[in-house]
């Protein structure tokens, strides 16, 4: 258990008496692609919200690079390199595809509060934004309005926008949800490419994706950790089969 980059200790979230996340101890190793799986309502998305402080935890701690980050606001956590995506594709629909990525790059200039400066000062970032778009194969869509993109492309754009922050740890919430087979293959390829030199924690329902992509898997059920290990270990666990894979096992 060396090189743990992201860790939770006794992480708990209660909503009016309902315990959504129940003292979860999670350890994500540096460089791993780590999956968080579990049936609907297991608390996976809530864990994401707690890790990035989109929700305050009732109890417990989140440690990122050995530092307690539970008290920091979400934007500060993102600046530290722990960057999340969302379950529903989160893009800026009325902006161009290029502008979507450029908004994420804008930090670098330090002029984000400069209301007196022309937006053409941001054109310095276009080259860099185009490179990011090329990395997810979106360069031909750069000038398109984002709402016009097909769903799979929007997810790719979201990935490029996340990568613009040069995250150390990426939290991806169901990156292949609602996609056709071809799109899934492409996004898996993109994630594998993006994960080089980074750590990824992802919520994922598609077990093919999990088995082919992930180094380590944590299974959540009813808010607490049911099992942890690599795909073979986890899928052999009878508790997991009962709680989660019971109906899925037929497909695997």
């Amino acid at each position, binding site marked *: 258990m060396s090189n743990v980059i992201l860790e939770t200790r006794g992480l708990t979230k209660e909503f009016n008496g309902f315990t959504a996340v129940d003292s979860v101890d999670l350890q994500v190793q540096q460089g791993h692609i780590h999956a968080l799986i579990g049936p609907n309502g297991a608390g996976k998305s809530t864990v994401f919200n707690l890790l990035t402080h989109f929700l305050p935890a009732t109890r417990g701690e989140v440690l990122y690079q050995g530092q307690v980050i539970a008290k920091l606001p979400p934007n500060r956590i993102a600046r530290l390199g722990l960057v999340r995506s969302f379950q529903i594709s989160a893009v800026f629909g009325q902006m161009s595809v290029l502008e979507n990525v450029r908004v994420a790059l804008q930090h670098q200039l330090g002029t984000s509060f400069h209301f007196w*400066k022309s*937006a053409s000062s941001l054109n310095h970032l276009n080259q860099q934004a185009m490179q990011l778009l090329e990395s997810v194969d979106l360069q031909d869509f750069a000038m398109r309005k984002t709402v016009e993109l097909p769903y799979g492309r929007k997810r790719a754009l979201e990935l490029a926008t996340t990568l613009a922050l040069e995250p150390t740890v990426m939290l991806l919430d169901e990156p292949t949800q609602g996609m056709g087979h071809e799109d899934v293959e492409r996004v898996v390829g993109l994630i594998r490419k993006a994960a080089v030199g980074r750590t990824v924690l992802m919520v994922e329902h598609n077990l093919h994706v999990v088995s082919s992509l992930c180094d380590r898997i944590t299974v959540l059920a009813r808010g607490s950790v049911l099992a942890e290990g690599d795909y073979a270990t986890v899928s052999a666990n009878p508790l997991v089969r009962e709680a989660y894979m019971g109906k899925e096992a037929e497909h695997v």
Partner: protein
Amino acid sequence: MNTATTHFQDALQRSQQRKQLYLGLALLTVALLAPFVAYPVFLMKLLCFALFACAFNLLLGYVGLLSFGHAAFLGTGGYITGWLLTRYSSLTPELGILGGTLAATLLGLLFGVLAIRRQGIYFAMITLALAQLTFFIYLQAPFTGGENGLHGVPRGQLFGLLDLKNDLAMYYFVLAVFLFGYLLIQRTVNSPFGQILRAIRENEPRALSLGYNVNAYKLLAFVISAGLAGLAGATKTVVFQFASLTDAHWHMSGEVILMTLLGGVGTLLGPVLGSSLVVWLHHALGGSVLGSWMSVILGSIFVLCVLLFRAGIVGYLQKFVQRNLR
């Protein structure tokens, strides 16, 4: 590929900018010649309300925040300027206006700090409540003249040189103030800051997850909006030599929403057109038998706007032009 696309974007941007420039110059010519055709005081009223509506639209149209208390800033700009200019007769009008604008900006900061963390209807309600509080302070405070209003504000001499008692001189000064406010808003919307505002309006959680402190951005937009609304109120007081409770009343907060929606929310020229139409309606119907039906007429327009013309007049014109001239 790379450079070709960005060149294409540059060219597109430049041709759009050129069209905007021509439209701007045409409108400016109209504005410069208008006082020779129409009554200057009426035109000045139009310009003051146009600036007020533009300031409001910066929030509603470009950040997605519905403030229901913007009358407080219009009223504060007016009262503080009026009070400064009547109390200290050596003050030149531009300093009085500056004082009123600063006061409204500070009030905007206070409102903003208290309200900005809330969303949607809660934000609107808090701004309404604070504006009502401000209204009652102006009703009771000794310096405002209560229900009678603050009378006898001298127009004075601009920079101690130019006599503003001349309506034409006053008009060009008001036009300059309006242009300053309008261009500031245009720049704000098309600035690095404006890009972040767009992102926040489109998807606030995502903007937050990209490391932007969204509340700070919203607060700055709110303060700019409040300051410009104050500037409108301050200028209006100098024009009419009078500050009254009407400007601070919640009716005014409602009317500016109507002006903005009618003209086109989220467009730069929409609020100018919308406010001009509303002010003109007041003017045209005020003297006639329909005057007492004013609220009903405005209310009906409001309902029609919300039901049928969500994009407003300028919004529809823009869509029409985009569809047919591309």
